[in-house]
């Protein structure tokens, strides 16, 4: 009851307060308990519920909203106008001819979009209805997720995902910590530690938690995942105690609880206000570059249409100035027509001309394009090579609108973890004093002592043996790995010993886990940390105990960590492990040369290397160390700096032991894929939330960076030393100097002589770069300089990226002056924002949930499938759709231009040249199927060649087949064909006896041909010409092509025979009766059809042959070559490579 009252009160206060009281911070009453009277009065705000909404429509607004959106498309709106004009005024053609197709298109699109939105509703519901546990009145109650409200205390168990953003109150662990993986948020799969509020961490049962009386003040939600500022006021005996809250107390929606039995936490941001939701971007409809060109062409054609109608209207009235032409005695007007005002008449005439010529922009083009995209996308789903047997998944197409965009990609933004890599570290080898040890694969969980390693070099002497053992111990001790216990203490030892997975290692660094596990395979097993003693099971199955004295934690500036331990014999050791660059300068003895050689060798292989060294400490030295460290730790000011200084003093005079190599297993063929993408002219950027070192190693392994890539760093470390301004100018100078001397052919990824640049930038620096320019003139526009640097780098690595920053980067590149086409690929929820932002978003079906897949345009099982998707499918789709678009405009110019010309010979009376049936069916059935089929199965080059020779992808880059010159060529060709057809027929009819001598008829007469025969003749030539034109363009004749091309011509003939062969009872005119047959019975008609078709096709054939000979594209060279060498398939590859070199 009390709850209800408080809810009511909150409600009332909400409505009384209203929205105007929007403030920068919010106050949350934990468990909805009001603060005791007398405390500072807080403004109670209205918070959204915990509902996630990704759907676009509701049941009620679907029809109006969808109609509105559909008619916002220029084309649809245009067709609607034409339809309405036909309804209102007396026009040459019936409104059905445009109304029916329009209705069809609108309905089909509405159904499709409605269905998609229904799926989104379903997905939202399943998320919003999943159960969560909430503490109410000292009891845990189940609730639907969407009913969760700010202030609710939530109970979360291990491996559950947090339902909203929470402040951690208490955990099952005594220390008040919990472990969380934020893999689906930022891609980091390591476990992170979060802390409960100090004053509440003891309250770890339902009743206790319910008794907490506190309020939280915190900032309003903002998308940065790593920032949070707040304050908790705890009322103990009505005396508020304030404690600061930071991001270490904030559990984010989407993260998962690990290694902690349960937690209690209070909801502070819910629903669309959670940081995860704020990092999502609204899903906007993506338009492909082809669609943009299509719209541009459409505007041109609209302009042509309007000018045609306008010219005709003006000419009509000029011509009609002579009253006898205006109204000759044989063609009187009705009385009402005479009374109409001239302006109205002119306007109706203009509209009638518009209607007559409106077919130049055919509804069917949009239908065909939609169908092509929809049906074509099945080839991606059907592709067996993109099926992954391991996952049992095939490629998924979520948006077929972007198929052709796959052939236009210039920038690829890829996530690292789970996309490039398997997200799975593996210990590969270690090297002690130059001797290499490779662990055997564990067989049946049994490690044979002593036999667990393979020594590549000669067996070491006794001194080396000692070093070797020290090395293994160092690795077993120098880390921050925790052992996750599932069983009792007794069980662990057994468990580990038997190789059962009853316990396993957990660490914030997967490398450390891999190292410790690798050591296990080499015979030294780290058991646990107990009472600040580390226990190791050595090769002889004896437990060795080392007292852990100090841990000098890892940081990315030092790039190393150390531990100080005391062995059971009382010896004091300092073990240090770190990046080679940070260890070697501090080494005073050891086989530096051999180890260095091995490290370099491994780095080239793309392995992540670490060096290990030690130092023996005398008790006096240890005292000194302790003194240094405690001094630094107690410092109140500059603590970090003093600690760093202390570490610097301690970690010196080291003796080198050896090095390790760990592999973050790349996905299968990831490097090959990246190389292909490079060769295809794409720039690949890796965007990751991971830290720089890890990410850089992956980049080397995946061949993103080569050995001779010069790395430019734009990181916090550098900007601390120098101002951002200087760093940027430095880098741009470096890059541009090189660029000035760069010749054209270095553009190809093949030539390695020239330095190519790789840029590494981190999130913090990026946000500094992106910050809008400040007042002081010095700062200038960093964005431009940054872009300039990026343009000259073959590869860029962005690390420590927040999800929204990934999207920002994509946006930045998208908006740069070349407007390149971008593709983003990722597998986690942290990639969603960039997947949505990029022109094409690709999701990988990884381990981290389906969020990326759901929000992507395309989803593939593995990164390697990107190669075929872009180089083969993308290329084909682009070729196909560009021909489709160009051909459609061409064939409609051919179709309508004669009608325009005919107006000059019929007194501008809007007399259609063709019969209504021909007007309606031309685009729908006579010429639609061949181009649709072409746009589905055309293959100008064999797909194996496309895959082998990625450089072919450059042939179609930058929308090259839809550039204006090509479009103009097609249009001119269309106009030429139209002129040939119209005037060909004209000269045959004009003032001559183009007649039939009627041999086939029963009487031997010479009969007149009328206007419908004239139109039919033009139309017949038209259908044959445009179909043959397509046949000339077809490179891949399957039986289906033959069937459709010849079939549609036969269909035209059969239809015409039938249409003219019967008196159709439902028609009130019979103008086409026997027209087609009469025409065919005339010899000259046949001769002129043949002549006009030939004349129409001649220039195009000529152009093709001459262009192919004089200015062949790479594609054409390869087509020719393939033809010549069809019998020797093995040489194709070699030749195609040479040709690609020629073309650059």
């Amino acid at each position, binding site marked *: 009851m009390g709850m209800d009252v408080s809810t009511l009160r909150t409600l009332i206060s909400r409505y009384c307060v209203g929205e105007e009281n929007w403030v920068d911070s919010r106050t949350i009453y934990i468990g909805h308990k009001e603060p005791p009277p007398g405390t500072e009065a807080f403004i109670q705000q209205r918070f959204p519920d915990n509902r996630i909404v990704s759907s676009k429509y509701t049941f009620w607004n679907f029809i109006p909203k969808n109609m509105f959106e559909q008619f916002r498309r220029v084309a649809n709106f245009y067709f609607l106008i034409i339809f309405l004009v036909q309804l209102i005024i007396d026009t040459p053609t019936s409104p059905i001819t445009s109304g029916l197709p329009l209705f069809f298109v609108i309905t089909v699109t509405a159904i499709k979009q409605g269905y998609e939105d229904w799926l989104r509703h379903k997905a939202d519901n399943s998320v919003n209805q999943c159960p969560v546990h909430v503490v109410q009145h000292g009891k845990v109650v189940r609730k639907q997720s969407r009913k969760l409200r700010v202030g609710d205390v939530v109970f979360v168990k291990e491996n559950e995902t947090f339902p909203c953003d929470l402040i951690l109150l208490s955990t099952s662990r005594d220390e008040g910590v919990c472990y969380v993986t934020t893999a689906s948020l930022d891609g980091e799969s390591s476990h992170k530690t979060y802390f409960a509020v100090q004053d509440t961490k003891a309250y770890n049962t339902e009743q206790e938690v319910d008794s907490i009386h506190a309020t939280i003040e915190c900032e309003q939600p903002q998308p940065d995942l790593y920032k949070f500022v707040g304050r908790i006021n705890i009322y103990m005996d009505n005396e508020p105690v304030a404690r600061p809250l930071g991001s270490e107390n904030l559990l984010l929606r989407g993260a998962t609880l690990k290694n902690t039995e349960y937690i209690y936490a209070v909801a502070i941001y819910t629903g669309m206000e959670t940081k995860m939701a704020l990092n999502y971007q609204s899903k906007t409809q993506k338009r492909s570059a082809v669609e943009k060109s299509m719209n541009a062409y459409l505007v041109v054609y609209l302009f042509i249409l309007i000018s045609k109608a306008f010219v005709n209207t003006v000419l009509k009235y000029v011509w009609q100035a002579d009253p006898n032409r205006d109204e000759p005695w044989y063609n009187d007007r009705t009385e009402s027509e005479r009374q109409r005002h001239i302006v109205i008449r002119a306007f109706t005439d203009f509209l009638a001309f518009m209607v007559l010529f409106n077919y130049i922009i055919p509804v069917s083009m949009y239908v065909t394009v939609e169908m092509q995209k929809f049906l074509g996308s099945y080839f991606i789903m059907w592709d067996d090579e993109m099926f992954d047997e391991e996952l049992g998944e095939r490629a998924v197409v979520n948006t077929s609108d972007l198929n052709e965009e796959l052939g236009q990609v210039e920038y690829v933004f890829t996530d690292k973890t789970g996309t490039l890599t398997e997200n799975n570290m593996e210990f590969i080898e270690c090297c002690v004093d130059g001797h290499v040890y490779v662990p055997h694969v564990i067989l049946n969980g049994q490690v044979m002592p002593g036999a667990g390693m393979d020594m590549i070099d000669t067996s070491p002497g006794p001194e080396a043996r000692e070093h070797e053992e020290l090395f293994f111990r160092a690795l077993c001790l120098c880390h921050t790995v925790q052992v996750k216990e599932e069983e009792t203490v007794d069980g662990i030892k057994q468990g580990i010993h038997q190789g059962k997975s009853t316990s396993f290692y957990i660490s914030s660094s997967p490398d450390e886990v891999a190292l410790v596990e690798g050591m296990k395979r080499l015979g030294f097993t780290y058991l646990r940390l107990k009472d600040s003693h580390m226990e190791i099971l050595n090769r002889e199955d004896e437990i060795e105990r080392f007292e852990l004295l100090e841990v000098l934690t890892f940081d990315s500036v030092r790039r190393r960590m150390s531990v100080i331990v005391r062995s059971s014999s009382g010896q004091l050791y300092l073990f240090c492990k770190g990046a080679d660059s940070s260890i070697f300068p501090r080494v005073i003895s050891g086989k530096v040369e051999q180890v260095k050689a091995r490290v370099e060798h491994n780095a080239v292989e793309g392995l992540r290397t670490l060096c290990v060294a030690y130092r023996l400490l005398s008790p006096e030295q240890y005292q000194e160390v302790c003194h240094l460290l405690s001094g630094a730790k107690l410092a109140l000011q500059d603590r970090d700096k003093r600690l760093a200084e202390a570490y610097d003093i301690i970690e010196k005079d080291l003796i080198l032991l050896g090095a390790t190599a760990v592999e973050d297993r790349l996905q299968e063929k990831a490097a090959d894929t990246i190389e292909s993408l490079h060769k295809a002219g794409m720039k690949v950027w890796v965007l990751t939330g991971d830290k720089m070192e890890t990410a850089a190693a992956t980049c080397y392994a995946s061949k993103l960076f080569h050995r001779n890539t010069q790395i430019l760093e734009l990181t916090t470390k550098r900007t601390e030393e120098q101002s951002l301004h200087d760093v940027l100018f430095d880098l741009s100078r470096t890059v541009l100097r090189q660029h000035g001397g760069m010749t054209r052919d270095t553009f190809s990824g093949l030539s390695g002589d020239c330095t190519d640049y790789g840029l590494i930038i981190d999130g913090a620096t990026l946000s500094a770069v992106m910050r809008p320019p400040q007042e002081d003139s010095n700062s200038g526009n960093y964005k431009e300089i940054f872009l300039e640097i990026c343009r000259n780098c073959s590869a860029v690595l962005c690390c420590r990226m927040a999800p929204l920053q990934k999207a920002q980067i994509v946006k930045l590149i998208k908006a740069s002056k070349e407007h390149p086409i971008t593709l983003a690929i990722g597998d986690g929820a942290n990639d969603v924002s960039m997947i949505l932002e990029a022109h094409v978003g690709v999701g990988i079906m990884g381990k981290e949930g389906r969020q990326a897949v759901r929000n992507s345009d395309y989803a593939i099982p593995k990164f390697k499938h990107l190669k075929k998707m872009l180089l083969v499918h993308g290329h084909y789709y682009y070729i196909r759709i560009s021909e489709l678009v160009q051909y459609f405009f061409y064939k409609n110019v051919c179709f309508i231009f004669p009608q325009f010309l005919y107006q000059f010979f*019929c007194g501008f009376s809007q007399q259609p040249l063709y019969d209504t049936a021909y007007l309606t069916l031309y685009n729908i059935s006579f010429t639609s199927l061949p181009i649709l089929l072409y746009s589905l199965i055309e293959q100008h080059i064999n797909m194996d060649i496309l895959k082998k020779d990625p450089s072919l992808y450059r042939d179609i880059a930058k929308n090259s087949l839809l550039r204006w010159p090509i479009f103009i060529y097609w249009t001119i060709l269309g106009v030429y064909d139209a002129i040939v057809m119209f005037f060909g027929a004209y000269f045959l009819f004009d003032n001559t006896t183009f007649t039939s001598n009627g041999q086939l008829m029963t009487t031997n007469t010479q009969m007149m041909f009328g206007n419908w025969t004239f139109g039919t003749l033009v139309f017949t030539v038209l259908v044959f010409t445009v179909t043959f034109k397509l046949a000339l363009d077809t490179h891949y004749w399957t039986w289906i092509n033959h069937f459709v091309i010849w079939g549609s011509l036969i269909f035209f003939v059969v239809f015409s025979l039938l249409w003219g062969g019967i008196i159709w009872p439902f028609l009130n005119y019979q103008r086409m009766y026997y027209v087609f047959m009469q025409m065919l019975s005339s010899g000259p008609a046949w001769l002129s059809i043949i002549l006009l078709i030939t004349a129409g096709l001649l220039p195009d054939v000529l152009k093709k042959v001459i262009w192919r000979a004089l200015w062949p594209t790479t594609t054409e060279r390869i087509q020719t070559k393939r033809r010549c060498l069809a019998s020797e398939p093995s040489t194709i590859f070699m030749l195609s490579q040479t040709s690609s070199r020629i073309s650059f």
Partner: protein
Amino acid sequence: MVKEEQELANRPDNTAFTQQRLPAWQPMLSAGIVIPGFVIIGLAFIGIGVALFVTSHSIQVLELDYTGVENTEPCYRCSDPSSKNCVCTLEFSIDSLFEGPVFFYYGLTNYFQNYRKYGASRDDNQLSGDLDYFKSPGNDCAPYQYNSNNKPIVPCGAIANSMFNDTFKLYQIIRGSKKLVPFDGKGIAWWTDYNIKYRNPSVTPLKNAFNDTVKPLFWSKPAYELDPTDPANNGFINQDFLVWMRRAALPDFRKLYRRITEGDYAKGLPAGNYSLEIAYNYPVMSFDGRKKVVLSNVSWMGGKNEFLGIAYLVIGSLCVVMSIVMLIVYAKFKFPEED
């Protein structure tokens, strides 16, 4: 086991079609095919062109304008619209035998039978003999739908109303006396128009079907009295009516009037003087039109038409020239990839 089945279910069909590996013929427009192709097409076209050109030249055409614009012309006085039932005579001579069968056309210029409104102004239901449409002709016929007394016009519409009504008689002048050249007026329209498309109502006598209707305003005789000599040539299936109803495509057109196939003239018109007697009724001066008669014979390829032959010759020679150009390009640039 279940998982395996799932995998199989999700695995795409491995067929040639779904994997885009259908067997295909992959032709290419290479010079090796195109050049010989052009030569062959070019030669064939030149051949056809020559044949057409020669044939077309053998066709005789005689064209006589009788509008009477100048006052020297015999029909000048008839061209005045106020004159009624005017008859004028045109004299001409033929130098050599005009081979038969000779076709006799009338021609009109600057006459737009292809106006949209004009073309739509007819009622095909009425013309197929449906009596319902005799009483209420279709609205498309307006303003030739009802007369001023609101009586339906049959046949309605602008086309029917404006039917050409000049009549011709051709005489050969043999030693001063006129000998009538017999005209054959049968089968000058499309067979399908005469037999199927146009139908008179099945009422006998035909006149009764036209009760309560009026003839088109321009007509002097009702439809059922168009040809007093032949009852089967009346109503909607009158041959002259059918010829007129088939609208010409272009503003300058000619229509078949009669054929000369009978009697002494079956072989053609012998050389000599002829006189054409014209009943001049049809006004064309108001819209600056011209009227003419044309005498012509035909060949296997129809009437005289030089365009087709010339076009064939031009395209054929272009093909040959282009193949030579391509050959030169071929020789000069060696088509490197085909070496």
